[in-house]
């Protein structure tokens, strides 16, 4: 693939790569111009655009440890604690520019998790995965294409292991091993950015045991190969995306990342693109690493999004004359506290990161899980406070077409007006931005993106050092039992 440098290169590359996507029951002819996808494309395009600006290069780019070339940070393998922190800072920065999800972190985290884990698989089994993966890494660093991280399988009956499912395709699996590669069946659900990516990196979805070997598969697959179908998920704002009016709230960018179900039906993957195949004992490690790297992000991206929610809430209050009320100021302070709390979690797990055998750096897993767990609560609380500050008008605001209607526009203009000096349209724009960012799909993404809350609580049980804490308590209480 020709190297993608600019936003325009990126959009053109999406047009050029012919993929099979369904949106609302219709086959999409050109994904690069489809109104359902354009806001998500704009968000991802921002990562290309900012990387070319000297004002942002320190965060948006890095020096490749393989080639020495300057590359997009989204294709970089963390070489230090500084890299881990810069990742979080970069995410907060891009959130400030988009107030949305820009999707590339999933592929970024898949690359880092695989780099660390393939090294260790090879060490144990003498397999060729790490070397193979380094070659793949050089290519993505050079071509700068967009990679979706394919983690979540549909999973069917959650009480059963992959090999025990009634329908074996409910976990993505190898159905045939050939001399030149493998054939894959199954699906990946909730795939952020899939419809505007070029390749997918599939990973095993959970820890696995003997008997699940066919499901222990990690591989990079171009999204235009035969057998792949993507089905875009319905969001709470899609009609508004089509309207492209101020009612969309965040007119240029998506509400969330734009998620899709990616189906694999007898998809051939050559061996040079396979990075794990049957090593069930490494599935848990790979999944935990991906999850930790991904949970590390959320105080950066959602922290940045929370900054915009705080700002929009303050504007909404200003436009209706309540900004100086003490209870409004206090709510804005609380929202700021929560936003900085989630950000500090991301910085902390990065600062306490460590070097893996491969040389790549890895965040502290307990603190990374804690960060994401806070997101499942604090973003809801920040949004609740935003609703409180903005008032009931957030739920009852007329359409922008009413404002622009020759007959009734004067009523909307007159009765939706706040303080003098601020137009009704301005007030409506800010209220719609807040509505877009604090409800529906945006909240669910904070709950389940990078793993549902229970998956973090399981990690607390594993990593929380409870026996050590009991030992310390025993010592202070001077008891032995």
């Amino acid at each position, binding site marked *: 693939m020709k190297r993608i440098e600019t936003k325009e290169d990126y959009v053109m590359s999406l047009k050029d790569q012919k993929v099979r996507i369904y949106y609302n029951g219709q086959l999409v002819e050109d994904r690069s111009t489809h109104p359902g996808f354009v806001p998500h494309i704009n968000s991802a395009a921002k990562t290309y655009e900012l990387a070319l600006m*000297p004002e*942002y*290069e*320190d*965060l948006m780019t890095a020096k490749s440890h393989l080639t020495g070339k300057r590359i997009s940070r989204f294709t970089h393998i963390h070489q230090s604690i500084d890299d881990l922190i810069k990742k979080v*800072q970069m995410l907060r920065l891009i959130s400030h520019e988009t107030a949305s999800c820009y999707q590339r972190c999933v592929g970024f985290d898949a690359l880092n998790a695989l780099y660390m884990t393939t090294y260790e698989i090879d060490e144990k089994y003498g397999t060729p995965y790490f070397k193979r993966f380094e070659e793949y890494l050089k290519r993505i660093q050079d071509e700068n294409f967009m990679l979706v991280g394919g983690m979540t399988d549909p999973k069917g009956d959650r009480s059963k292991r992959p090999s025990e499912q009634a329908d074996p395709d409910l976990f993505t699996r190898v159905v045939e091993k050939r001399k030149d590669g493998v054939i894959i069946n199954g699906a990946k659900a909730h795939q952020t950015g899939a419809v505007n990516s070029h390749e997918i990196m599939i990973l095993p979805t959970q820890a696995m045991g003997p008997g699940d070997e066919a499901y222990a598969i990690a591989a990079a697959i171009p999204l235009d190969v035969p057998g792949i179908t993507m089905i875009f998920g319905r969001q709470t704002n899609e009609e508004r995306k089509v309207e492209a009016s101020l009612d969309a709230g965040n007119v240029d960018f998506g509400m969330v990342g734009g998620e899709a179900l990616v189906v694999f039906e007898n998809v051939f993957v050559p061996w040079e693109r396979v990075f794990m195949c049957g090593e069930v004992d490494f599935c848990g490690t790979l999944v935990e690493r991906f999850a930790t790297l991904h949970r590390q992000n959320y105080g950066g991206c959602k922290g940045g999004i929370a900054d915009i929610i705080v700002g929009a809430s303050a504007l909404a209050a200003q436009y209706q004359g309540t900004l100086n009320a003490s209870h409004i100021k206090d709510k804005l302070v609380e929202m700021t506290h929560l936003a900085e709390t989630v950000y500090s979690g991301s910085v902390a797990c990065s600062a306490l990161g460590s070097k893996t055998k491969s040389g790549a750096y890895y965040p502290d897993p307990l603190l990374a899980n804690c960060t994401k767990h806070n997101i499942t609560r604090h973003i809801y609380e920040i949004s609740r406070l935003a609703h409180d500050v903005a008032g009931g008008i957030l739920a009852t605001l007329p359409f922008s077409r009413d404002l622009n209607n020759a007959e009734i526009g004067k009523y909307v203009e007159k009765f939706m007006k706040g303080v003098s000096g601020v137009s009704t349209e301005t007030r409506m724009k800010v209220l719609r931005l807040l509505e877009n960012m604090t409800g529906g799909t945006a909240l669910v993404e904070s709950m389940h993106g990078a793993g549902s809350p229970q998956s973090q609580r399981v990690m607390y049980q594993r990593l929380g050092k409870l026996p050590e804490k009991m030992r310390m308590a025993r010592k202070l209480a001077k008891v032995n039992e």
Partner: protein
Amino acid sequence: MRAGPAVKKVALKYCGGCDCTYDRLAYAKRILAVAQGRIRWVSMEGEGFNTILMIHGCHVACPEEKLGRNHPWRIVSVSDDRVAPEEIIDKLLERGGE
């Protein structure tokens, strides 16, 4: 024929901009406007400069921190927009052109 005023070469370096406490880009634009005709801006990869203007979004000043103390350059560092752009330019031009 009189020679025009010497134009000094200065490197311009921005921090990453993760969480700025002011609009550093608007402020930088004001500085660049005032410097017009007196300073030729180059990147850190460029040559022939001995002074760097570092535009930081906050007082952490990451690029300056990373540079450390053992470097050959004179640094003029900006972490807020409280100083008039003219004063920044005066500081940059303090040691004459080269």
